[in-house]
């Protein structure tokens, strides 16, 4: 690497006395070092404190977020109506309030869930999810011993936690909790570091690795290239554009909610096992279901305060 015989040959020979003087740490060294290190630590602590105390990226709030959805004129809603119709009507009422006055909540009745996976597939179709990306798998739990075996199903959307661990780890403010409780991802900001994937104990975030179901066939089918409408925008995944390379997750079909439609998984459920609505409305079905005593939350011990409740 370096000719060793030439190694470190100083042209100038040091004088011994000056070396000795310059080899001692002085009071000035200590003071300057303390000032520099102290200043550095103070700046670092300040930056972290400000970041921890600062509010999430701005989501529009106030009267301009009120959405007027017309009433269903051809059907009358009564106590006996299908819960989908009733929840649809409650949704209309919730959207008539500013966003900060709504609080979306999902209750899943595991006793009604038959494990058909229709919600999983409906979600895949609605959001045009590529291979390896899933927002709502149905986890199957088997308990008991033959011949007394039971199955229970836990559809697992994003828990939209009130204390979301995925949000605080994001290095670029690309994910945050909206005033209505939905945790969203800004695809244009996300750098694809996948820290949020690691931080979510529910495994509710998946990364888009740019795959297609019909690749390695003569042609990638046009339906796989259609844009999806997540967050009310058009995402076509062309080239390496977002959401390829991004973290993706359930957003309670925010694009549908804004148009007065229930999340796709709720609409599709054949057993009517999903309840969805505004928790701030004490008379909504979801609020009533959320008060039942036979409820659990997944991994509650993690302290994430999930807003998806399971009835068992």
């Amino acid at each position, binding site marked *: 690497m370096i000719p060793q015989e030439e190694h470190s040959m100083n042209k100038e020979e040091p004088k011994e006395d000056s*070396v000795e003087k310059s080899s001692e740490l002085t009071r000035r060294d200590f003071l300057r070092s303390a000032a*520099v290190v102290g200043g550095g630590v103070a700046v670092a602590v300040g930056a972290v404190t400000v970041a921890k105390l600062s509010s999430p990226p701005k989501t529009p709030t106030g009267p301009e977020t009120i959405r007027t959805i017309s009433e269903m004129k051809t059907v009358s809603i009564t106590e006996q109506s299908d819960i989908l119709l009733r929840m649809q009507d409650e949704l209309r009422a919730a959207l008539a309030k500013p966003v900060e006055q709504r609080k979306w909540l999902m209750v899943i009745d595991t006793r009604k869930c038959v494990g058909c996976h229709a919600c999983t597939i409906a979600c895949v179709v609605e959001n045009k999810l590529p291979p390896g990306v899933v927002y709502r798998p149905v986890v199957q739990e088997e308990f008991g011993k033959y011949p007394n075996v039971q199955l229970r199903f836990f559809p697992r959307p994003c828990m939209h936690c009130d204390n979301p661990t995925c949000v605080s780890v994001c290095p670029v403010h690309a994910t945050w909790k909206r005033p209505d409780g939905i945790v969203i991802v800004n695809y244009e*900001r996300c*750098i694809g570091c996948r820290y949020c994937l690691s931080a979510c104990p*529910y495994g509710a975030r998946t990364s888009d690795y740019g795959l297609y179901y019909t690749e390695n066939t003569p042609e990638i089918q046009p339906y796989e290239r259609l844009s999806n409408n997540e967050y009310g925008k058009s995402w076509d995944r062309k080239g390496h554009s977002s959401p390829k390379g991004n973290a993706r997750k359930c957003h309670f079909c925010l694009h549908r909610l804004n148009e007065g439609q229930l999340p796709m998984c709720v609409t599709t459920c054949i057993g009517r096992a999903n309840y969805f609505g505004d928790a701030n409305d004490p008379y909504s079905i979801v609020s009533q279901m959320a008060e039942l005593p036979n409820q659990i939350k997944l991994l509650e011990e993690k302290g994430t305060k999930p807003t998806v409740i399971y009835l068992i």
Partner: protein
Amino acid sequence: MKENNAKNLYVVWAIAFVVGLIAFVMKLVTGERLAGYGSYVPWGLWVGLYFHFIGIAGGAFAIGAIGYFLNFKGFREHIRVILLLSACSIVTGLFSIWLDLGQPFRFARILYSPNFGSMMAFNAWMYMVFFAIIAGIFYLSMNKIHQNDLHDKSGWLVPLFALGFVFSIAFPSQSGSFLGVVDAKPFWSSPLVPLLFLASAIICGAAAILLVFTFVFPAQTSVREQPFSMLRYIIIGGMAFYFVAEFAEFSLVFWSPNSEIRTSVELILFGPFWWVFWLVHIGGSIAALIMLIRGSSFKFLGTASFIVVVGFLSARLNVLIPGQAVSQLKGLQEAFYHFRLRYDYSPTLNEYLVAVFIGAFAVGLFYSGMKMLSKITTKRIGTLL
């Protein structure tokens, strides 16, 4: 003989670089499609390399600073070599993590739009400031009356070194905190993890300096003298601490009737990658220790330090991967099948070859830096390094 060795090393490096370069280009063209990690184990070999190189950067600087302040033989004269080593390791570490990003061309966002509440953004900024500190020290180190002096003419070299020393201890530990703050992964969520990361940074930093010094120092230097003896003691002591801490953690798991992290530890010891722990980590470390204790030539010390620098990557991977490989939600993997939705992880050929490229990149960067360094110092202050 020596020329032959240099030629052989060059050939090995060139092969590694070219083969790795092909894999690297394939990675750039195909994105993450050729990688083996997925959504449940989202961080793989390249993230391990990132932690490893960042550790080398911090450890090398910290030891260099101690040697510089305490005036251990060879440190003040060669401080710029150590600074270069640290800077090249930082650059290589950042290169590794850049490769791992899903949207790599948005990397600058972490600098201009950071969330300092995230350990990742905080660390990214620390690396940048640390890099600037290295540049400042490098500049001031050439502004001394004698190369063996502690101070430069302005008097700011020592304070800057002090700040750099604090950073060099902080960010390798923060690499451990980076994982430690993830409550979702019980195996990471231990105060021991930042300490283990700091210990491995010191070990690898010392080993990297030792490896470089075996090339830089004249062949007739005794390996029992300074700075070699100090570097050997640091590596041996660091390894002893690391293994004691590792033993403490693992033994607790097996004593406890109901440990939350038992599955992760069992994966390390008896899982499909058992050989990474037993052969690379333990076996490699024992071989290196024997050579460090008994070795009496540069060849032995160089080989031992090379084994430590490369082999201790296994220590990073044995924290990183098993922590992710255990699901908190039982049955999730079976709920929706896809190879990117699995809790097991094996690096693909592309990942291995890109890792080889990253290693070759680091060596090439340092070698070019040494060439440039000798030109700059010869011109500016009349010394070779």
